[in-house]
Protein backbone atom coordinates (compact mmCIF):
# COMPACT_ATOMS: atom_id res chain seq x y z
CA UNK A 1 0.00 0.00 0.00
CA UNK A 2 1.77 3.17 -1.15
CA UNK A 3 1.89 6.07 1.27
CA UNK A 4 0.27 9.29 0.07
CA UNK A 5 3.44 11.25 0.61
CA UNK A 6 5.81 13.35 -1.42
CA UNK A 7 9.25 12.74 0.02
CA UNK A 8 11.78 15.50 -0.55
CA UNK A 9 15.45 15.34 0.39
CA UNK A 10 17.26 17.78 -1.84
CA UNK A 11 20.33 19.91 -2.28
CA UNK A 12 20.81 22.25 -5.20
CA UNK A 13 23.45 24.97 -5.57
CA UNK A 14 23.43 27.91 -7.95
CA UNK A 15 25.85 30.81 -8.15
CA UNK A 16 25.28 32.66 -4.88
CA UNK A 17 22.32 30.56 -3.85
CA UNK A 18 21.69 27.18 -2.34
CA UNK A 19 18.61 25.13 -1.58
CA UNK A 20 18.67 22.36 1.01
CA UNK A 21 15.49 20.76 2.21
CA UNK A 22 14.39 17.52 3.80
CA UNK A 23 10.66 17.25 4.22
CA UNK A 24 7.78 14.79 3.73
CA UNK A 25 4.62 16.44 2.42
CA UNK A 26 1.25 14.69 2.57
CA UNK A 27 -0.42 14.32 -0.83
CA UNK A 28 -3.69 15.87 0.20
CA UNK A 29 -5.20 19.32 0.41
CA UNK A 30 -3.37 22.53 -0.44
CA UNK A 31 0.20 22.96 0.76
CA UNK A 32 1.56 26.48 0.37
CA UNK A 33 5.27 27.11 -0.15
CA UNK A 34 5.75 30.61 1.14
CA UNK A 35 8.76 32.88 1.20
CA UNK A 36 10.27 36.08 -0.17
CA UNK A 37 11.56 36.12 -3.75
CA UNK A 38 14.92 34.41 -3.94
CA UNK A 39 14.05 32.02 -1.12
CA UNK A 40 14.15 29.04 -3.47
CA UNK A 41 10.45 28.24 -3.57
CA UNK A 42 10.20 28.26 -7.37
CA UNK A 43 13.40 26.23 -7.65
CA UNK A 44 11.92 23.67 -5.27
CA UNK A 45 8.83 23.37 -7.47
CA UNK A 46 10.96 23.02 -10.62
CA UNK A 47 12.99 20.28 -8.94
CA UNK A 48 9.79 18.41 -8.12
CA UNK A 49 8.53 18.84 -11.70
CA UNK A 50 11.87 17.60 -13.04
CA UNK A 51 12.83 20.79 -14.89
CA UNK A 52 15.94 21.03 -12.69
CA UNK A 53 18.20 18.29 -11.39
CA UNK A 54 19.32 18.33 -7.77
CA UNK A 55 23.04 18.15 -6.95
CA UNK A 56 22.21 15.54 -4.37
CA UNK A 57 19.10 13.93 -3.00
CA UNK A 58 15.91 12.22 -3.92
CA UNK A 59 12.24 12.77 -4.59
CA UNK A 60 9.67 10.03 -4.05
CA UNK A 61 6.03 10.42 -5.08
CA UNK A 62 3.78 7.75 -3.55
CA UNK A 63 6.94 5.63 -3.00
CA UNK A 64 7.78 5.86 -6.71
CA UNK A 65 11.29 7.20 -7.38
CA UNK A 66 11.14 10.46 -9.33
CA UNK A 67 14.75 11.23 -8.71
CA UNK A 68 17.57 9.65 -6.75
CA UNK A 69 21.09 10.94 -7.30
CA UNK A 70 22.66 8.10 -5.28
CA UNK A 71 21.04 5.48 -7.52
CA UNK A 72 21.59 7.70 -10.60
CA UNK A 73 17.88 7.67 -11.36
CA UNK A 74 16.05 10.57 -12.88
CA UNK A 75 12.49 10.37 -14.14
CA UNK A 76 12.17 12.97 -16.94
CA UNK A 77 9.45 15.59 -16.43
CA UNK A 78 7.11 14.11 -19.01
CA UNK A 79 6.99 10.83 -17.09
CA UNK A 80 6.24 12.38 -13.69
CA UNK A 81 2.61 12.32 -12.60
CA UNK A 82 2.65 16.03 -11.78
CA UNK A 83 0.68 18.88 -13.33
CA UNK A 84 2.49 22.19 -13.54
CA UNK A 85 1.09 25.70 -13.96
CA UNK A 86 3.69 28.43 -14.07
CA UNK A 87 3.56 32.18 -13.61
CA UNK A 88 1.26 33.79 -16.16
CA UNK A 89 -0.19 30.37 -17.02
CA UNK A 90 0.94 30.15 -20.63
CA UNK A 91 -0.98 27.85 -22.98
CA UNK A 92 -0.05 26.32 -26.34
CA UNK A 93 -0.72 29.35 -28.57
CA UNK A 94 -1.32 27.46 -31.81
CA UNK A 95 -4.13 25.31 -30.39
CA UNK A 96 -7.67 26.19 -29.39
CA UNK A 97 -8.76 25.78 -25.79
CA UNK A 98 -10.18 22.36 -26.69
CA UNK A 99 -6.88 21.46 -28.37
CA UNK A 100 -4.95 22.63 -25.32
CA UNK A 101 -7.07 20.46 -23.03
CA UNK A 102 -6.85 17.33 -25.17
CA UNK A 103 -3.09 17.73 -25.79
CA UNK A 104 -2.19 16.51 -22.34
CA UNK A 105 -5.19 14.27 -21.85
CA UNK A 106 -4.50 12.08 -24.89
CA UNK A 107 -0.83 11.70 -23.92
CA UNK A 108 -1.61 10.65 -20.38
CA UNK A 109 -2.20 6.99 -21.14
CA UNK A 110 -3.95 4.64 -18.81
CA UNK A 111 -4.31 6.61 -15.63
CA UNK A 112 -7.52 6.04 -13.72
CA UNK A 113 -9.99 8.74 -14.74
CA UNK A 114 -11.72 9.78 -11.56
CA UNK A 115 -13.27 12.71 -13.42
CA UNK A 116 -14.15 13.54 -17.04
CA UNK A 117 -13.40 16.45 -19.36
CA UNK A 118 -16.97 17.65 -18.77
CA UNK A 119 -16.51 17.59 -14.99
CA UNK A 120 -13.40 19.75 -15.28
CA UNK A 121 -14.75 22.27 -17.78
CA UNK A 122 -17.92 22.64 -15.72
CA UNK A 123 -16.05 23.09 -12.44
CA UNK A 124 -13.86 25.80 -13.95
CA UNK A 125 -16.61 27.48 -16.04
CA UNK A 126 -14.69 27.16 -19.28
CA UNK A 127 -17.15 25.11 -21.35
CA UNK A 128 -18.15 28.15 -23.48
CA UNK A 129 -14.50 28.88 -24.31
CA UNK A 130 -13.62 25.61 -26.01
CA UNK A 131 -13.28 27.01 -29.55
CA UNK A 132 -11.35 30.12 -28.48
CA UNK A 133 -7.67 30.72 -29.16
CA UNK A 134 -5.47 31.43 -26.13
CA UNK A 135 -4.74 34.95 -27.43
CA UNK A 136 -8.47 35.76 -27.14
CA UNK A 137 -8.74 34.79 -23.46
CA UNK A 138 -8.71 37.20 -20.54
CA UNK A 139 -6.12 36.72 -17.81
CA UNK A 140 -8.55 34.94 -15.50
CA UNK A 141 -9.88 32.69 -18.26
CA UNK A 142 -6.36 31.70 -19.23
CA UNK A 143 -5.61 30.70 -15.62
CA UNK A 144 -8.69 28.51 -15.47
CA UNK A 145 -7.89 26.82 -18.80
CA UNK A 146 -4.32 26.19 -17.61
CA UNK A 147 -5.66 24.60 -14.41
CA UNK A 148 -8.03 22.40 -16.44
CA UNK A 149 -5.20 21.45 -18.81
CA UNK A 150 -3.03 20.34 -15.90
CA UNK A 151 -5.91 18.50 -14.18
CA UNK A 152 -6.68 16.50 -17.31
CA UNK A 153 -3.27 14.82 -17.23
CA UNK A 154 -4.73 13.12 -14.11
CA UNK A 155 -1.71 13.99 -11.99
CA UNK A 156 -0.95 12.79 -8.47
CA UNK A 157 -0.19 16.38 -7.56
CA UNK A 158 -0.74 19.83 -9.02
CA UNK A 159 2.28 22.17 -8.84
CA UNK A 160 1.35 25.86 -9.04
CA UNK A 161 4.17 28.38 -9.34
CA UNK A 162 2.59 31.75 -8.49
CA UNK A 163 0.07 31.15 -11.27
CA UNK A 164 -2.06 34.16 -10.41
CA UNK A 165 0.67 36.73 -9.71
CA UNK A 166 -0.02 38.48 -13.02
CA UNK A 167 -3.68 39.11 -12.10
CA UNK A 168 -4.89 42.18 -10.25
CA UNK A 169 -6.24 41.62 -6.75
CA UNK A 170 -9.89 41.52 -7.77
CA UNK A 171 -9.33 38.88 -10.49
CA UNK A 172 -7.09 36.91 -8.17
CA UNK A 173 -9.75 36.81 -5.46
CA UNK A 174 -12.24 35.68 -8.11
CA UNK A 175 -10.15 32.67 -9.09
CA UNK A 176 -9.19 31.41 -5.63
CA UNK A 177 -12.61 29.82 -4.98
CA UNK A 178 -12.05 27.68 -8.09
CA UNK A 179 -8.95 26.19 -6.52
CA UNK A 180 -10.91 25.36 -3.41
CA UNK A 181 -13.61 23.83 -5.56
CA UNK A 182 -11.04 21.60 -7.28
CA UNK A 183 -10.01 20.46 -3.82
CA UNK A 184 -13.50 19.58 -2.79
CA UNK A 185 -14.58 18.05 -6.10
CA UNK A 186 -11.51 16.23 -7.40
CA UNK A 187 -9.50 15.73 -4.17
CA UNK A 188 -6.44 16.95 -6.06
CA UNK A 189 -3.37 17.59 -3.89
CA UNK A 190 -1.88 21.00 -4.63
CA UNK A 191 1.59 22.42 -3.96
CA UNK A 192 1.19 26.15 -4.21
CA UNK A 193 4.08 28.62 -4.39
CA UNK A 194 3.26 32.15 -3.34
CA UNK A 195 4.64 35.20 -1.58
CA UNK A 196 1.18 36.69 -0.98
CA UNK A 197 0.08 36.35 2.66
CA UNK A 198 -3.57 36.91 1.87
CA UNK A 199 -3.57 34.25 -0.84
CA UNK A 200 -1.84 31.71 1.38
CA UNK A 201 -4.02 32.46 4.39
CA UNK A 202 -7.10 32.03 2.28
CA UNK A 203 -6.14 28.80 0.51
CA UNK A 204 -3.67 26.68 2.34
CA UNK A 205 -4.27 23.71 4.62
CA UNK A 206 -0.61 23.72 5.66
CA UNK A 207 2.39 25.80 4.89
CA UNK A 208 6.11 25.39 4.29
CA UNK A 209 8.06 28.61 4.79
CA UNK A 210 11.42 28.94 3.03
CA UNK A 211 14.06 31.56 3.57
CA UNK A 212 17.40 31.64 1.72
CA UNK A 213 16.87 28.06 0.58
CA UNK A 214 16.17 26.64 4.06
CA UNK A 215 12.96 25.62 5.80
CA UNK A 216 12.10 28.06 8.58
CA UNK A 217 8.67 26.72 9.48
CA UNK A 218 6.25 23.99 8.51
CA UNK A 219 2.74 23.15 9.59
CA UNK A 220 -0.27 25.17 10.78
CA UNK A 221 -0.94 28.13 8.48
CA UNK A 222 -2.00 30.66 11.13
CA UNK A 223 0.80 29.85 13.55
CA UNK A 224 3.54 29.74 10.90
CA UNK A 225 2.44 32.95 9.19
CA UNK A 226 2.15 34.83 12.50
CA UNK A 227 5.60 33.66 13.56
CA UNK A 228 7.44 34.28 10.27
CA UNK A 229 5.50 36.06 7.56
CA UNK A 230 5.07 39.56 8.93
CA UNK A 231 7.90 42.07 8.83
CA UNK A 232 8.64 45.64 9.85
CA UNK A 233 7.12 47.20 6.74
CA UNK A 234 4.18 44.89 6.42
CA UNK A 235 3.11 44.06 9.95
CA UNK A 236 -0.06 42.35 11.01
CA UNK A 237 -1.51 39.08 12.19
CA UNK A 238 -3.75 36.25 11.12
CA UNK A 239 -6.63 35.48 13.50
CA UNK A 240 -8.37 32.15 13.38
CA UNK A 241 -12.12 32.34 13.83
CA UNK A 242 -15.43 30.70 13.20
CA UNK A 243 -18.65 31.88 11.61
CA UNK A 244 -21.29 31.95 14.37
CA UNK A 245 -24.29 33.85 12.98
CA UNK A 246 -25.76 35.62 9.95
CA UNK A 247 -27.73 38.87 10.05
CA UNK A 248 -29.88 38.81 6.93
CA UNK A 249 -31.32 42.30 7.39
CA UNK A 250 -27.95 44.05 7.65
CA UNK A 251 -26.21 41.52 5.39
CA UNK A 252 -23.54 40.80 7.98
CA UNK A 253 -22.07 37.72 9.58
CA UNK A 254 -20.60 37.23 13.03
CA UNK A 255 -17.15 35.77 13.35
CA UNK A 256 -15.89 34.71 16.72
CA UNK A 257 -12.18 35.27 17.22
CA UNK A 258 -9.86 35.63 20.20
CA UNK A 259 -10.95 38.77 22.05
CA UNK A 260 -14.50 39.00 20.80
CA UNK A 261 -16.85 38.86 17.84
CA UNK A 262 -16.35 40.70 14.56
CA UNK A 263 -19.24 41.59 12.29
CA UNK A 264 -18.20 41.49 8.63
CA UNK A 265 -20.05 41.65 5.32
CA UNK A 266 -21.80 38.32 4.79
CA UNK A 267 -20.45 35.95 2.17
CA UNK A 268 -22.83 33.52 0.51
CA UNK A 269 -20.31 30.71 0.34
CA UNK A 270 -19.94 30.57 4.15
CA UNK A 271 -22.14 28.75 6.60
CA UNK A 272 -22.36 28.68 10.37
CA UNK A 273 -19.53 26.73 11.95
CA UNK A 274 -17.07 27.35 9.06
CA UNK A 275 -13.52 28.05 10.20
CA UNK A 276 -12.11 31.26 8.73
CA UNK A 277 -8.86 33.17 8.89
CA UNK A 278 -8.75 36.93 9.17
CA UNK A 279 -5.86 39.08 8.03
CA UNK A 280 -5.43 42.18 10.17
CA UNK A 281 -2.79 44.75 9.22
CA UNK A 282 -1.07 46.70 11.99
CA UNK A 283 -1.89 50.07 10.45
CA UNK A 284 -5.56 49.21 9.98
CA UNK A 285 -6.13 48.72 13.71
CA UNK A 286 -6.63 51.53 16.26
CA UNK A 287 -6.54 51.41 20.05
CA UNK A 288 -9.02 52.80 22.55
CA UNK A 289 -9.15 52.71 26.35
CA UNK A 290 -12.93 52.68 26.37
CA UNK A 291 -15.46 50.70 24.37
CA UNK A 292 -16.06 52.79 21.23
CA UNK A 293 -19.19 54.87 21.15
CA UNK A 294 -20.21 57.35 18.48
CA UNK A 295 -17.73 55.94 15.98
CA UNK A 296 -18.31 54.41 12.58
CA UNK A 297 -15.88 51.68 13.51
CA UNK A 298 -17.99 49.03 15.18
CA UNK A 299 -15.61 46.13 15.47
CA UNK A 300 -13.70 46.14 18.74
CA UNK A 301 -11.76 43.29 20.34
CA UNK A 302 -10.75 43.27 23.97
CA UNK A 303 -7.12 42.70 24.86
CA UNK A 304 -4.20 43.73 26.91
CA UNK A 305 -1.02 45.62 26.04
CA UNK A 306 1.87 43.15 26.06
CA UNK A 307 4.70 45.37 24.86
CA UNK A 308 5.34 48.83 23.49
CA UNK A 309 8.35 49.77 21.43
CA UNK A 310 9.46 52.46 19.05
CA UNK A 311 8.92 51.69 15.38
CA UNK A 312 12.23 53.04 14.10
CA UNK A 313 13.02 56.74 14.60
CA UNK A 314 9.75 57.95 13.11
CA UNK A 315 6.59 59.18 14.80
CA UNK A 316 5.17 55.67 15.20
CA UNK A 317 5.10 53.13 18.01
CA UNK A 318 4.47 49.44 17.70
CA UNK A 319 2.10 48.15 20.36
CA UNK A 320 1.79 44.43 20.89
CA UNK A 321 -1.72 43.55 22.04
CA UNK A 322 -2.66 40.12 23.39
CA UNK A 323 -6.18 38.99 22.58
CA UNK A 324 -6.62 36.04 24.94
CA UNK A 325 -3.34 34.51 23.87
CA UNK A 326 -3.23 35.69 20.24
CA UNK A 327 -0.79 38.46 19.44
CA UNK A 328 -1.86 41.42 17.36
CA UNK A 329 0.63 44.17 16.47
CA UNK A 330 -0.87 47.65 16.27
CA UNK A 331 0.81 50.72 14.82
CA UNK A 332 -0.07 53.98 16.58
CA UNK A 333 1.59 57.40 16.64
CA UNK A 334 3.95 58.23 19.49
CA UNK A 335 1.61 61.14 20.30
CA UNK A 336 -1.37 58.80 20.66
CA UNK A 337 0.60 56.39 22.83
CA UNK A 338 1.55 59.27 25.17
CA UNK A 339 -2.01 60.70 25.25
CA UNK A 340 -3.43 57.31 26.21
CA UNK A 341 -0.45 56.76 28.53
CA UNK A 342 -0.29 53.19 27.30
CA UNK A 343 1.49 50.75 29.61
CA UNK A 344 2.19 47.09 29.57
CA UNK A 345 -0.63 45.08 31.11
CA UNK A 346 -3.22 47.74 30.37
CA UNK A 347 -6.65 46.66 29.08
CA UNK A 348 -7.42 48.10 25.64
CA UNK A 349 -9.90 47.81 22.84
CA UNK A 350 -8.48 47.05 19.42
CA UNK A 351 -10.66 48.82 16.86
CA UNK A 352 -10.66 47.01 13.55
CA UNK A 353 -11.10 49.32 10.55
CA UNK A 354 -10.87 46.58 7.98
CA UNK A 355 -10.35 42.90 8.26
CA UNK A 356 -9.63 40.83 5.20
CA UNK A 357 -11.47 37.59 5.29
CA UNK A 358 -9.28 34.80 4.14
CA UNK A 359 -9.78 31.07 4.32
Amino acid at each position, binding site marked *: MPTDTLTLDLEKRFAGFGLALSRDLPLEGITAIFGPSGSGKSTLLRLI*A*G*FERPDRGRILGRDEVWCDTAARRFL*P*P*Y*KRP*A*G*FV*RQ*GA*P*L*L*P*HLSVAGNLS*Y*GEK*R*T*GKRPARYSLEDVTAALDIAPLMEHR*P*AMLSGGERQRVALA*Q*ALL*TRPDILLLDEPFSALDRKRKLAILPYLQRLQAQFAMPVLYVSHDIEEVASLADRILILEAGRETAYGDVTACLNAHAFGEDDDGAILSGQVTAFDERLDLMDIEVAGGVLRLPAEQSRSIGDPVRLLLRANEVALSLTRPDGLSIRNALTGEVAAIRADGDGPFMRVEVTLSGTHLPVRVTRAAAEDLSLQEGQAVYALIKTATLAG
Partner: protein
Amino acid sequence: MTLPDLPALWLTLRLALTTTGLLLLIGTPLAWWLATTRTRAKPVIEALVALPLVLPPTVLGFYLLIAFNPDSPIGSFWLSVTGDTLTFSFAGLVIASVIYSLPFMVQPLQTAFETTGRSAMELAASLRAAPLDAFFTVAMPGAARGFVTAIVLSFAHTLGEFGVVLMVGGNIPERTRVISIAIYEHVDNLAYAEAHTLSAILLGLSFIVLLFVYAFNRRFPVHAH
Protein backbone atom coordinates in the same frame (compact mmCIF):
# COMPACT_ATOMS: atom_id res chain seq x y z
CA MET B 1 11.36 32.98 -74.36
CA THR B 2 13.63 31.03 -76.62
CA LEU B 3 13.54 27.30 -76.16
CA PRO B 4 17.25 26.96 -75.21
CA ASP B 5 16.56 28.88 -71.98
CA LEU B 6 13.90 26.45 -70.73
CA PRO B 7 16.43 23.91 -69.42
CA ALA B 8 18.23 26.70 -67.52
CA LEU B 9 14.96 27.74 -65.87
CA TRP B 10 14.09 24.16 -65.04
CA LEU B 11 17.58 23.47 -63.66
CA THR B 12 17.41 26.58 -61.50
CA LEU B 13 14.06 25.58 -59.99
CA ARG B 14 15.33 22.04 -59.39
CA LEU B 15 18.47 23.36 -57.71
CA ALA B 16 16.53 25.79 -55.51
CA LEU B 17 13.99 23.14 -54.48
CA THR B 18 16.60 20.46 -53.76
CA THR B 19 18.75 22.92 -51.82
CA THR B 20 15.80 24.18 -49.76
CA GLY B 21 14.70 20.62 -49.00
CA LEU B 22 18.16 19.58 -47.85
CA LEU B 23 18.54 22.80 -45.86
CA LEU B 24 15.29 22.04 -44.03
CA LEU B 25 16.66 18.63 -43.00
CA ILE B 26 20.05 20.02 -41.95
CA GLY B 27 19.07 23.50 -40.76
CA THR B 28 16.16 22.51 -38.48
CA PRO B 29 18.15 20.36 -36.03
CA LEU B 30 21.12 22.73 -36.26
CA ALA B 31 18.93 25.77 -35.47
CA TRP B 32 17.25 23.89 -32.61
CA TRP B 33 20.61 22.90 -31.20
CA LEU B 34 21.88 26.50 -31.42
CA ALA B 35 18.68 27.80 -29.80
CA THR B 36 18.86 25.43 -26.83
CA THR B 37 22.54 24.59 -26.27
CA ARG B 38 24.53 25.97 -23.37
CA THR B 39 27.90 24.96 -24.82
CA ARG B 40 30.70 27.51 -25.05
CA ALA B 41 31.30 26.48 -28.64
CA LYS B 42 28.04 28.16 -29.66
CA PRO B 43 29.56 31.46 -30.89
CA VAL B 44 32.07 29.52 -33.02
CA ILE B 45 29.30 27.52 -34.70
CA GLU B 46 27.17 30.66 -35.14
CA ALA B 47 30.08 32.48 -36.79
CA LEU B 48 30.72 29.53 -39.13
CA VAL B 49 27.04 29.41 -40.13
CA ALA B 50 27.01 33.17 -40.79
CA LEU B 51 30.23 33.15 -42.80
CA PRO B 52 28.55 32.89 -46.25
CA LEU B 53 26.73 36.16 -45.49
CA VAL B 54 29.93 38.18 -45.54
CA LEU B 55 32.23 36.08 -47.71
CA PRO B 56 32.39 37.06 -51.42
CA PRO B 57 30.72 34.17 -53.31
CA THR B 58 33.84 33.79 -55.43
CA VAL B 59 35.94 33.12 -52.33
CA LEU B 60 33.52 30.45 -51.12
CA GLY B 61 33.34 29.06 -54.66
CA PHE B 62 37.12 28.96 -54.92
CA TYR B 63 37.53 26.92 -51.73
CA LEU B 64 34.72 24.60 -52.74
CA LEU B 65 36.30 24.12 -56.16
CA ILE B 66 39.50 23.02 -54.44
CA ALA B 67 37.61 20.74 -52.02
CA PHE B 68 35.55 19.19 -54.85
CA ASN B 69 38.60 18.53 -57.05
CA PRO B 70 38.81 14.79 -57.86
CA ASP B 71 42.34 14.79 -56.38
CA SER B 72 41.14 16.10 -53.00
CA PRO B 73 39.84 13.72 -50.29
CA ILE B 74 36.22 14.87 -50.65
CA GLY B 75 36.29 14.97 -54.43
CA SER B 76 37.94 11.58 -54.80
CA PHE B 77 35.59 10.00 -52.23
CA TRP B 78 32.58 11.30 -54.16
CA LEU B 79 34.06 10.05 -57.44
CA SER B 80 34.65 6.56 -56.04
CA VAL B 81 31.13 6.33 -54.59
CA THR B 82 29.06 7.85 -57.40
CA GLY B 83 31.35 7.59 -60.41
CA ASP B 84 30.83 11.29 -61.13
CA THR B 85 32.86 14.37 -60.22
CA LEU B 86 31.62 17.00 -57.80
CA THR B 87 33.01 19.82 -59.87
CA PHE B 88 30.92 20.88 -62.85
CA SER B 89 28.03 18.62 -61.77
CA PHE B 90 24.52 19.15 -60.39
CA ALA B 91 25.45 17.35 -57.15
CA GLY B 92 28.34 19.76 -56.64
CA LEU B 93 26.01 22.70 -57.27
CA VAL B 94 23.57 21.41 -54.65
CA ILE B 95 26.27 20.99 -52.00
CA ALA B 96 27.71 24.43 -52.76
CA SER B 97 24.23 26.01 -52.60
CA VAL B 98 23.44 24.32 -49.30
CA ILE B 99 26.57 25.80 -47.74
CA TYR B 100 26.01 29.17 -49.39
CA SER B 101 22.37 29.48 -48.21
CA LEU B 102 22.83 27.87 -44.78
CA PRO B 103 22.53 31.14 -42.78
CA PHE B 104 19.27 31.99 -44.55
CA MET B 105 17.74 28.79 -43.21
CA VAL B 106 19.38 28.59 -39.79
CA GLN B 107 19.10 32.18 -38.56
CA PRO B 108 15.31 32.69 -38.91
CA LEU B 109 14.70 29.21 -37.45
CA GLN B 110 17.04 29.81 -34.51
CA THR B 111 15.30 33.11 -33.71
CA ALA B 112 11.89 31.44 -33.96
CA PHE B 113 12.93 28.55 -31.70
CA GLU B 114 14.43 30.95 -29.17
CA THR B 115 11.14 32.87 -29.08
CA THR B 116 9.10 29.70 -28.57
CA GLY B 117 11.45 29.09 -25.71
CA ARG B 118 12.05 26.72 -22.91
CA SER B 119 8.79 27.59 -21.17
CA ALA B 120 6.70 26.17 -24.07
CA MET B 121 8.79 22.99 -24.08
CA GLU B 122 8.38 22.67 -20.31
CA LEU B 123 4.64 23.13 -20.70
CA ALA B 124 4.62 20.33 -23.28
CA ALA B 125 6.67 18.12 -20.96
CA SER B 126 4.28 18.76 -18.08
CA LEU B 127 1.51 17.66 -20.48
CA ARG B 128 3.34 14.32 -20.88
CA ALA B 129 4.88 14.98 -24.31
CA ALA B 130 8.27 13.29 -24.79
CA PRO B 131 11.00 15.63 -26.11
CA LEU B 132 10.72 14.60 -29.80
CA ASP B 133 6.92 14.66 -29.63
CA ALA B 134 7.08 18.12 -28.04
CA PHE B 135 9.46 19.29 -30.75
CA PHE B 136 7.08 18.34 -33.55
CA THR B 137 3.85 19.38 -31.83
CA VAL B 138 4.93 22.52 -29.94
CA ALA B 139 8.30 23.87 -31.09
CA MET B 140 7.68 23.46 -34.84
CA PRO B 141 4.14 24.93 -34.90
CA GLY B 142 5.39 27.72 -32.64
CA ALA B 143 8.09 28.47 -35.21
CA ALA B 144 5.71 28.36 -38.22
CA ARG B 145 6.51 31.91 -39.26
CA GLY B 146 10.21 31.28 -38.90
CA PHE B 147 9.87 28.26 -41.19
CA VAL B 148 8.06 30.26 -43.88
CA THR B 149 10.68 33.00 -43.74
CA ALA B 150 13.57 30.53 -43.75
CA ILE B 151 12.19 28.46 -46.63
CA VAL B 152 11.44 31.49 -48.78
CA LEU B 153 14.76 33.18 -48.13
CA SER B 154 16.74 30.00 -48.80
CA PHE B 155 14.81 29.32 -51.98
CA ALA B 156 15.10 32.89 -53.25
CA HIS B 157 18.76 33.14 -52.32
CA THR B 158 19.58 29.95 -54.22
CA LEU B 159 17.53 31.18 -57.18
CA GLY B 160 19.70 34.25 -57.58
CA GLU B 161 23.08 32.72 -56.85
CA PHE B 162 25.84 33.41 -59.39
CA GLY B 163 29.40 33.54 -58.17
CA VAL B 164 29.54 30.22 -56.34
CA VAL B 165 27.76 28.42 -59.19
CA LEU B 166 30.10 29.86 -61.77
CA MET B 167 33.19 28.81 -59.79
CA VAL B 168 32.01 25.30 -58.91
CA GLY B 169 29.71 24.43 -61.81
CA GLY B 170 30.84 26.50 -64.73
CA ASN B 171 28.32 26.95 -67.55
CA ILE B 172 27.37 23.54 -68.90
CA PRO B 173 23.89 23.54 -70.51
CA GLU B 174 21.35 21.22 -68.79
CA ARG B 175 23.96 20.36 -66.14
CA THR B 176 25.11 23.50 -64.36
CA ARG B 177 23.77 26.38 -66.44
CA VAL B 178 21.31 28.23 -64.17
CA ILE B 179 19.24 31.34 -64.97
CA SER B 180 21.60 33.93 -63.54
CA ILE B 181 24.45 32.55 -65.63
CA ALA B 182 22.23 32.35 -68.72
CA ILE B 183 21.33 36.03 -68.26
CA TYR B 184 24.98 36.95 -67.92
CA GLU B 185 25.79 35.06 -71.10
CA HIS B 186 22.93 36.70 -73.03
CA VAL B 187 24.15 40.14 -72.01
CA ASP B 188 27.69 39.13 -72.88
CA ASN B 189 26.43 38.20 -76.36
CA LEU B 190 24.36 41.43 -76.54
CA ALA B 191 21.18 39.32 -76.74
CA TYR B 192 19.20 41.82 -74.65
CA ALA B 193 15.74 40.49 -75.57
CA GLU B 194 16.52 37.05 -74.11
CA ALA B 195 18.15 38.65 -71.07
CA HIS B 196 15.01 40.76 -70.57
CA THR B 197 12.71 37.75 -70.66
CA LEU B 198 14.70 35.75 -68.17
CA SER B 199 15.21 38.77 -65.88
CA ALA B 200 11.49 39.54 -65.93
CA ILE B 201 10.69 35.94 -64.99
CA LEU B 202 13.09 36.09 -62.05
CA LEU B 203 11.74 39.48 -60.96
CA GLY B 204 8.12 38.29 -61.12
CA LEU B 205 8.91 35.05 -59.32
CA SER B 206 10.74 36.86 -56.50
CA PHE B 207 7.92 39.35 -56.05
CA ILE B 208 5.23 36.66 -55.90
CA VAL B 209 7.25 34.70 -53.34
CA LEU B 210 7.73 37.75 -51.10
CA LEU B 211 4.08 38.72 -51.49
CA PHE B 212 3.17 35.25 -50.25
CA VAL B 213 5.41 35.65 -47.17
CA TYR B 214 3.98 39.01 -46.17
CA ALA B 215 0.41 37.91 -46.79
CA PHE B 216 1.04 34.82 -44.65
CA ASN B 217 2.51 36.89 -41.83
CA ARG B 218 -0.59 39.09 -41.88
CA ARG B 219 -2.93 36.13 -41.59
CA PHE B 220 -1.01 34.63 -38.70
CA PRO B 221 -0.04 37.46 -36.40
CA VAL B 222 2.43 36.81 -33.63
CA HIS B 223 0.77 34.85 -30.83
CA ALA B 224 0.45 37.28 -27.97
CA HIS B 225 0.79 35.98 -24.44
